[in-house]
């Protein structure tokens, strides 16, 4: 343990000239990270000596890559290429093929990545921008209306009904902010919108709520609608907010008088809306009509007492200030929520309207469909083929979206990372567009699993000549030709798959098939056919059920007509569609053999080549990075790839596994045994402590814990280790004086020091907790969960 630490430290010290240089605040790296300036953590950047030029190159590339990834993930919307800071070395990819890849080829990959991602990103943006337009227009209409003139003068309230995913809710509210900011900038608008975003972290009591409200109002008045009050993404929070909590009652007055020029804040309390009222009455020029839009982003998390008080106060200003309050609510029934949270007085004082936002679930499917499941044109130079998802990646994407995280943002981040990994780690990825196939590429192509399978099949077919021709070292042209052929085949293949998907989906809608399969699920079924044993049966069962339901349904004739008109109107030259079109136009609804006809039509699906076996599919599809060589698990939820491991780390299982068996990280038998054969059985102390911990009851007496830990240590081996240190003159003086064999006190001291240190580490990891009295420790996790 101690040895390992020392070596690590040495690494850094050797490389760095001084400590101050080796630890650089994160913001030093690039502008994209400036949001994180306030953060309390640092990246340690080892200083690399100038001689190792290749390493400099590599590490700087890594940091640019990292910053690009992080910066664009947190705020992907601003990450289009034009806004990205220009770098001298715009390419953040490294040379593959063991460094033999030329810079030109690397650049090509990078360009392809940018090209692909930007076009997909644009599609996503288009979809996202258009989904909520209707809602925003309704909200704008609500805001513009002059509710003050109504007779009983209630406070108008907008209830924005949001989904249960908080990340998506935040994104909708953020888009709404953007929308209003854009509206503000229009020259012909007669309204002046001031948006105030409040969230539960501001609203722990009414005073803090109003203080924040007034602060944001003052800022909005002072700066117009600057970006200062845009909702902040999780993770972008500045630390100012926490400081505010400390403000005590003695400090309630607005302090800096010079901060706000247009408003007289002298002697006013921070939470007094009167000063806004005063400003509005005296100083606001009436050219545009002003609207203060107060958006409570996560009303569910705010104490209902505070909301009631806030509404009460705003009610008092309803006729003197143009206020609109919008409550963002995750509830499927607003009335129920009001019943549970508003008191009767507030209910009478307000006049609520409900606004419903779109379901994000369908949105996610829509995005996936439009990104990956659209018809591909024939190959031409400026439109390279679409990159598709392979079976595993699509399973992972779909299962995370459906099972655990239905946030649109994280879905987009996952897709982006897939693209990035694809172009970053595979030199062959460039071949999707370029035909300039050099010897390195052909060598690489020959090593692809799909190529090996292809050869195996040839062997099975006894086509020895073909094999010989392909495998000859100097015959690159043959491979190149094969690649071009396969590229064309791939387009046909995918168009066929998509054709089937469209038809199956149409049938599903016509007969209201339950449970309905989304496009990507159908895609998975069709492409995985012969490769996954369970799936071919599932597919055939599904198709025969669907066809049965379609033919036997009561309104078969109308469905038939609908299918026919769908096929005719469907603008595609895909052979599958054409085939069904001709089949259908040749038969009528009364035809008794139609069921057989349809079943036959779907027959090719079951014999279709699976995508996994498709030659060179590694180039045309994204696998999201490989993490382990072990065989694929049967259970689809246990699928893993690099992409998902980066976005959703297996935190708990890694910690538990690592502590249980340190060889994954430390004692790799490959070199450890060579290093010191005698010590091979000695584990790091923390692993030893964790073993004792695992067997302990929920509450552990500290002394018992220590005694058990001491007993569990192998004194003899430790003795050998210490002796080896004693021989080494450069080691610590304390170790040199240790005599654990004869001096029990030394042994106790040593083990106790280890015990205390490692207990602390377990506490830091969140596995252990000290009880208030201090004589007992408490286990925080249960084992095996």
């Amino acid at each position, binding site marked *: 343990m101690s040895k390992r630490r020392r070596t690590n430290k040495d690494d850094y010290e050797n490389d760095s000239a001084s400590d101050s240089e080796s630890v650089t605040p994160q913001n030093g790296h690039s502008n994209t990270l400036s949001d994180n300036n306030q953060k309390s953590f640092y990246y340690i950047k080892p200083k690399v000596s100038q001689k190792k030029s290749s390493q400099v190159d590599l590490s700087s590339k890594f940091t640019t890559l990292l910053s690009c990834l992080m910066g664009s993930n947190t705020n992907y919307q601003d990450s289009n290429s034009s806004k990205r800071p220009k770098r001298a070395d715009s390419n953040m990819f490294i040379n593959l093929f063991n460094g033999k890849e030329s810079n030109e080829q690397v650049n090509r990959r990078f360009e392809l990545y940018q090209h692909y991602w930007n076009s997909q990103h644009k599609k996503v943006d288009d979809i996202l921008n258009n989904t909520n337009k209707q809602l925003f227009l309704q909200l704008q209409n609500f805001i513009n209306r002059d509710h003050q003139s109504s007779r009983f003068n209630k406070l108008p309230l907008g209830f924005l009904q949001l989904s249960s995913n908080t990340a998506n809710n935040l994104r909708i509210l953020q888009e709404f902010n953007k929308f209003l900011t854009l509206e503000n900038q229009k020259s012909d608008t007669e309204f002046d919108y001031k948006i105030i975003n409040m969230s539960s972290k501001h609203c722990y009591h009414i005073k803090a709520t109003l203080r924040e409200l007034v602060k944001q109002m003052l800022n909005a008045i002072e700066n117009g609608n600057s970006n200062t009050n845009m909702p902040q993404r999780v993770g972008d929070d500045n630390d100012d907010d926490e400081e505010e909590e400390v403000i005590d009652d003695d400090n309630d007055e607005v302090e800096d008088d010079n901060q706000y020029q247009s408003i007289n804040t002298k002697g006013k309390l921070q939470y007094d809306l009167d000063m806004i009222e005063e400003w509005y009455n005296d100083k606001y020029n009436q050219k545009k009509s002003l609207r203060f839009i107060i958006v409570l982003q996560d009303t569910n998390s705010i104490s209902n007492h505070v909301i009631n008080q806030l509404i009460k106060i705003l009610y008092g200003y309803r006729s003197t200030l143009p206020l609109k309050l919008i409550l963002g609510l995750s509830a499927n029934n607003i009335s129920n929520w009001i019943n549970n949270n508003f008191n009767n007085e507030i209910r009478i004082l307000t006049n609520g309207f409900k606004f419903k936002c779109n379901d994000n679930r369908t949105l996610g499917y829509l995005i996936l469909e439009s990104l990956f499941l659209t018809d591909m044109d024939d190959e031409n130079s400026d439109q390279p083929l679409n990159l598709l998802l392979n079976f595993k990646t699509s399973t992972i994407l779909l299962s995370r979206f459906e099972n655990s995280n239905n946030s649109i943002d994280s879905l987009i981040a996952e897709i982006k990372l897939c693209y990035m990994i694809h172009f970053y780690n595979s030199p062959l990825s460039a071949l999707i567009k370029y035909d300039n196939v050099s010897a390195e590429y052909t060598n690489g192509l020959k090593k692809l699993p799909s190529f090996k399978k292809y050869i195996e099949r040839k062997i099975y077919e006894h086509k020895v000549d073909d094999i010989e021709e392909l495998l000859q070292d100097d015959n690159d042209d043959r491979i190149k030709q094969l690649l071009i052929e396969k590229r064309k085949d791939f387009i046909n293949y995918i168009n066929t798959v998509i054709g089937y998907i469209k038809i199956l989906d149409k049938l599903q809608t016509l007969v209201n098939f339950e449970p309905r399969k989304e496009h990507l699920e159908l895609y998975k079924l069709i492409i995985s056919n012969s490769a996954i*044993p369970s799936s071919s049966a599932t597919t055939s069962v599904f198709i025969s059920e669907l066809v049965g339901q379609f033919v036997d349904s009561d309104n078969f004739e109308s469905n038939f007509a609908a299918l026919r008109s769908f096929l005719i109107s469907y603008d595609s030259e895909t052979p599958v569609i054409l085939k069904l079109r001709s089949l259908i136009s040749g038969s009528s609804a009364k035809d008794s053999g139609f069921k057989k006809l349809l079943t036959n039509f779907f027959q090719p699906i079951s014999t279709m080549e699976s995508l996994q076996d498709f030659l060179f599919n590694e180039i045309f599809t994204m696998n999201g990075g490989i993490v382990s060589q072990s065989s694929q698990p*049967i259970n689809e*939820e246990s699928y893993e790839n690099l992409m998902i491991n980066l976005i959703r780390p297996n935190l708990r299982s890694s910690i538990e596994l690592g502590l249980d068996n340190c060889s994954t990280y430390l004692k790799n038998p490959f070199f450890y045994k060579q290093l010191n054969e005698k010590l091979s059985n000695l584990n790091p102390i923390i692993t030893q402590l964790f073993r004792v911990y695992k067997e302990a009851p929920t509450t552990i007496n500290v002394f018992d814990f220590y005694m058990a830990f001491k007993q569990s240590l192998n004194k003899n081996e430790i003795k050998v280790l210490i002796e080896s240190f004693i021989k080494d003159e450069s080691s610590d003086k304390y170790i040199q004086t240790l005599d654990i064999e004869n001096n029990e006190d030394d042994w106790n001291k040593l083990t106790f020091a280890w015990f205390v240190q490692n207990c602390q580490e377990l506490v830091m990891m969140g596995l252990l907790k000290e009880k208030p009295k201090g004589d007992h420790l408490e286990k925080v996790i249960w084992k095996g969960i």
Partner: protein
Amino acid sequence: MARDSVIDQLKEEVKYRSNEIDLLSAFISEDALISTPSLIVHGYKAVGKTYTVQKYLQTLDVSTSVIRCDECITNRVLLQRCFNRIKADRQDGYKKEDGIHDKLKFGKSIESFYNFANALENYFESTSYTKNHILVLDRFDQCMESTNELFAGFLKLREICQVKNLTIIFIVSTDIPKEVITAVTPTIYFKSYTEEQVTDILQINQLCLFGIEELDNTQAGYEFWKQYSKIVVDLFFSYTGSDLSLLIDICVKLWTKFIEPVVSGKYQVHEFVKVYRENADIFTNENVINNSSIREYATLEEEKPVSNENVEDLPTHSKFILIASYLASFVDQKDDLHKFSKVKAVKYKKRVFSNKVTKNDIDTRLLNPGFFDLERMFAILSVIYRNTAPSLNQHTEINLANDVAQIEEKKDTERAKFTLSRNTDLYSQVATLFSLGLISKSAASDILGARVRWKCNINWLTVETLAKEVDFSIVDYLGDGL
């Protein structure tokens, strides 16, 4: 004499409050010397206290400041507003100075009652303000901070400082606090209205109009309103009592729907009974009383009631987490081994012959949800997810090309090891459910601590629909499964 006629006219205008008006005129007058320093107006809510006082004060030629105390979050705001209003409402022809200068001079920062009294004294003295000024502290007991101390302070204002011409009227609806109960302060009590009085008051003014010229401002229209308000009072008096604001709200809310047959021309305006019969059901709607109905902005359609909570669009794992949390809350921890593991813990139930009903005899669903440890919930989650999740329980189709037994075996080991808690998504889902209020934790405890106790926050109906959605038979785990 002129004064008497004014008062009589006021009594006409403000119905059923002649005694109170007499009392007010006895205590409050234009002359500061014969006015009482402070007066408490006391009575149940919405019985016309503020209305009567304001109407009365309008008949006097005196400067009046009204503070709505229920909109003040702290006493400081209350005091500042009092001071500022008094300055602003002063009507003795005193030329107001420049705003900022004024503020600098008096009460730059009023922090306590003492500051306030001091500033007020300074202001009254230096500007030689001697005319009577009346300060009305409306809903004084409903300020967001407790005002009991302040109450005593205001009552003693004349003892503390030299201001002699300020009369304070407190309007309160709850009991007079103990700090001031012994002080000899004149109190006017406003009695609640009787049903007849309420009907009469409502009938005087036609609050809602038809929006048709031929009907509005006609005798027939007014008669229709009178009958309508009588009906409303008859039906809802037992609920509203004398609370006029509630009654007015109900009248207004139901009016548009009620007059629909008249507006559409189906019935004449004098056919009130027919109109009522046609509309009888709108009076029995629950929403009339709970006021929580809400309309969609685009369509103006009322929202339809839904029995379960916001759980439909949750991801599958979250649904299982909710079910697990429900089980953790409603299953006794000592039964865990028996219910969630393969261990057969055979338990012999003691037959209880006594008539005493213990907690164990009650269906747990009827009890309060119990608190649980997060890890226990995760353990339950692991078990129920393994056993029922569709992705883990697909049947292997008979496929002769593969070794079915081997696959099944592999699948079983995989299933036995499968856990949701291995990655970070689980924790973020728990956090989301917490922020949605579907699960809650014991108050004021560190979220990372081991002793944080969690609790399920959804009802049986919701969890039942959830269980149906994910095809999980929750009853098996809840009931007494022996």
